[in-house]
């Protein structure tokens, strides 16, 4: 711990309107370390790092780089000073290609000052190889799945060759295999002397990669740990200010009749031609939480979207409570008693400019309206109840959702769907970006809902979550189910192995 201090933040404070996001924070990054930044949703992690990366220009306190106090006026300034950041909400341009995105703002030029496309493509291929993803650099980013986009963001940050690399929840849409790959990259960078700030709500990752951790609560530093002395429980307790309740608390005993029955579901738009026509078959019973595991692109999202009537064409059969259904549209699916929490809340989940209130009651306005007139009282009471149940941290329910921290935004989407009182809940990475405390709450809530007879189909890339929450986990690979593991008997290792295509003996 005697390596050089690369950057230092001293007494940083930052408010948004009346909300104090950071108070007097001191923070330093040293060469060759991975410094984890922890804290519950809304603790101020992203805000602090946006100050360091030049994204927020009006703050109090000082930023010191290589011993010199600096004041950045934009991300470009910070990049010039060797500081790069991967943002929590993917900030890529959908219409531009992977290569264009990676070099955006610092395009290599030929001697004629035109774009040097060949250099861009070559470099991009190298970077993508380092990140472990095989993509055509000319593909528009908008065509990529969330996880792939996250990897492109990482590649983009790598291309900056930064001394200090800030990664704000870089793995939230990645599954184990990609995470492993990324950790290899981080290890290389660390060895080369870079300093890395690592923000994540996946506590297992922190244990594996971090050298040091700083914990923020309500905008202030409340604890610092050395990797050797840090335990997941200790960190979590520092984050939320009290001991964490048991994370997983679902009693699998109370399961009822079959709720959902999917048989041979194939989404034919698959152009790979490698899709086995057997497709996906699975069942979910009332009161049962069924997990969906798989690698990036294994077909989890697609399955959930299809069930919710939000995908393309498909064949196979779907039965709900024994009756065959063909969900035509999300509206139809909601009427059938289905609810869906999509994986990318910004693009698919929220009208960011609109209030928490408006976003929360969106799916139930028809229900809380009399003669077409929305009841303001009910609107408020339903929202308040949701905010309370899910412990959403916010100023006022009339604030725009964009003012909430990432995790709290996720809870709003989650809450909206719960208000429809579904019989089957389809969750796609529902705890993506959600802090440990809130995760525990969500798990408990899921447990309660299941005990009340709801069926849950939960796709997740966090194996611990699948193992902890679900009664059974179904492993998808290449668009079909390749294994089914009761969590009573199988753990993360088995799930991982099955996801990678190894046959798991049960």
């Amino acid at each position, binding site marked *: 711990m005697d390596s050089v201090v690369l950057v230092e933040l001293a007494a940083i404070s930052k408010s948004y*309107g*009346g*909300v104090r996001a950071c108070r007097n924070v001191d923070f330093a990054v040293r060469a060759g370390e991975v410094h984890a930044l922890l804290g519950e949703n809304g603790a101020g992690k992203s805000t602090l790092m946006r100050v360091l990366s030049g994204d927020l220009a009006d703050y109090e306190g000082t930023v010191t780089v290589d011993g010199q106090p600096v004041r950045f006026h934009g991300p470009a300034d910070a990049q010039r000073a060797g500081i790069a950041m991967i943002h929590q909400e993917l900030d890529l341009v959908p219409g531009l290609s992977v290569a264009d995105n990676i070099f955006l703002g610092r395009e290599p030029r030929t001697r004629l000052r035109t774009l040097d496309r060949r250099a861009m493509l070559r470099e991009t291929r190298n970077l993508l190889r380092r990140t472990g993803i095989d993509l055509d650099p000319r593909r528009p980013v908008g065509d990529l799945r969330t996880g792939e986009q996250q990897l492109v963001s990482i590649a983009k940050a790598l291309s900056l060759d930064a001394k200090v690399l800030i990664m704000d929840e870089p793995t939230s849409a990645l599954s184990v295999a990609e995470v492993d790959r990324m950790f290899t990259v981080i290890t290389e960078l660390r060895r080369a002397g870079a300093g890395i700030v690592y923000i994540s709500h996946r506590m297992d990752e922190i244990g594996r990669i971090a050298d040091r951790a700083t914990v923020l609560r309500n905008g202030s530093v409340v604890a610092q740990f050395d990797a050797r002395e840090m335990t997941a429980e200790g960190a979590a307790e520092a984050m*939320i*200010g009290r001991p964490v309740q048991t994370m997983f608390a679902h009693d699998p005993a109370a399961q009822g009749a079959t709720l959902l029955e999917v048989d041979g579901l194939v989404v034919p738009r698959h152009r790979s031609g490698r899709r086995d026509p057997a497709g996906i078959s699975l069942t979910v019973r009332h009161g049962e939480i069924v997990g969906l595991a798989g690698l990036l692109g294994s077909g989890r999202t697609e399955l959930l979207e299809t069930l*919710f009537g*939000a995908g393309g064409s498909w064949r196979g059969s779907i039965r709900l409570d024994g009756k065959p259904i063909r969900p035509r*549209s*999300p*509206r139809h*699916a*909601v*009427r059938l008693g289905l609810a*869906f929490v*999509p994986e990318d809340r910004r*693009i*698919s*989940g*929220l*009208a*960011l*400019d*609109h209030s928490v209130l*408006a*976003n929360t*009651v*969106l*799916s139930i*306005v*028809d229900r809380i*309206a009399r003669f*077409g*007139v*929305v009841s*303001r009282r009910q609107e408020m009471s339903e929202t308040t109840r949701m*905010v*309370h149940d899910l*412990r*959403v*941290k*916010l*100023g*006022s329910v*009339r*604030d*725009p959702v*964009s*003012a909430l921290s990432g995790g709290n935004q996720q809870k709003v989407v989650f809450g*909206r769907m719960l208000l*429809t009182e579904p019989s089957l809940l389809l969750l796609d990475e529902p705890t993506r970006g959600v802090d440990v*405390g809130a995760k525990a709450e969500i798990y408990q809530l899921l447990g309660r809902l299941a005990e009340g007879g709801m069926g849950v189909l939960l796709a997740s890339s966090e194996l611990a979550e699948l193992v902890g929450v679900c009664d059974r986990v179904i492993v998808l690979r290449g668009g079909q189910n390749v294994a089914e593991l009761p969590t009573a008997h199988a753990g993360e290792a088995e799930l991982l192995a099955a996801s990678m295509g190894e046959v798991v003996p049960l």
Partner: protein
Amino acid sequence: MTAEVVGVRRHTIRTTVFRFQSLFGLVAVFVAAILFSPSRNGELVFLSSGNLFNVVRAISEKGIIAVGMTFVILIGGIDLSVGAVLGLTAVASADLMVNNDWGVVPTVLLVLVVGLVFGLLQGVASTAFRIQAFIVTLAGLQIARGLARIWSGGQGIAISYGTDPGEAPVAFSLLGERTFNGLVPIPALIFVVIAVLATLFLRSSAFSRHVYAIGGNEKAARLSGIPVTKVKIIVFGICGLLTALAGIIHAGQLNQGSPNDGLGYELDAIAAVVIGGTSLAGGRGSVGGTVAGALLIGVLNNILSLNGVNSDIQLLITGFVIVVVAGLQRLRPAA
């Protein structure tokens, strides 16, 4: 860790200010109008009730259209066809009564249906084939204009009142009249009623939540179970319906239905909406703002005319005022 309720007060203040934000410009222009008003016998001409009602009457047609346009813009769309649809429906009104001896009620009903259907069809074309509303309604503009020309034979159809064949029912002439002691023009009344109804509707109906949600994030709205396509089609229908209403009033006001009527009204209507603070990106705005926007332009035109400002200079002043007003609206601190 219960949800904190800090900032409720802060919020209330901001909301209040924001509520009135779209009025800032109007108030400023209104005050300027008073300051610059010529006076006669010690009375300010601008403030005379006759003049104020003239202002409202003058904007009532475009105002009604702008209310419909507000809905369309709230879903992130746009409707360029309104001017031409006004022409088409004005022609239809005149033709039915004058050349086909229809009564007022059937005429009004049929013309409203024409506008509604035209709007709905545009909605269908734009949602079914996912064509940008700009394009669909640009085509709609040409089609409506062409239909109006063909329907009328290219000439305005003059309306005179009476009971003979070839004369329109006297009742229709009410649209050109004033009521309450000859003071309040009927079109102004209709405009106010429409504006109030639309405001209430947009504030409290379940449908309006769908409208805002679609403009805010269409994909999220769809995944929330909102019938996005249906709502969009209905919104275009509403705009067509209100435009038809304006077309009927236009025919009544001018005693004529001409295929060239309403030329360029689309830009004026959109301008009223946008000056009123509604975002062209959708999801944000109000009918109150639109009414303020329409009034602002009306007051500005009026005071410039009352002062005999030359029309070239009027153009310059109007341009500058629009920018300043739009700038005023941005004073609001970013959320």
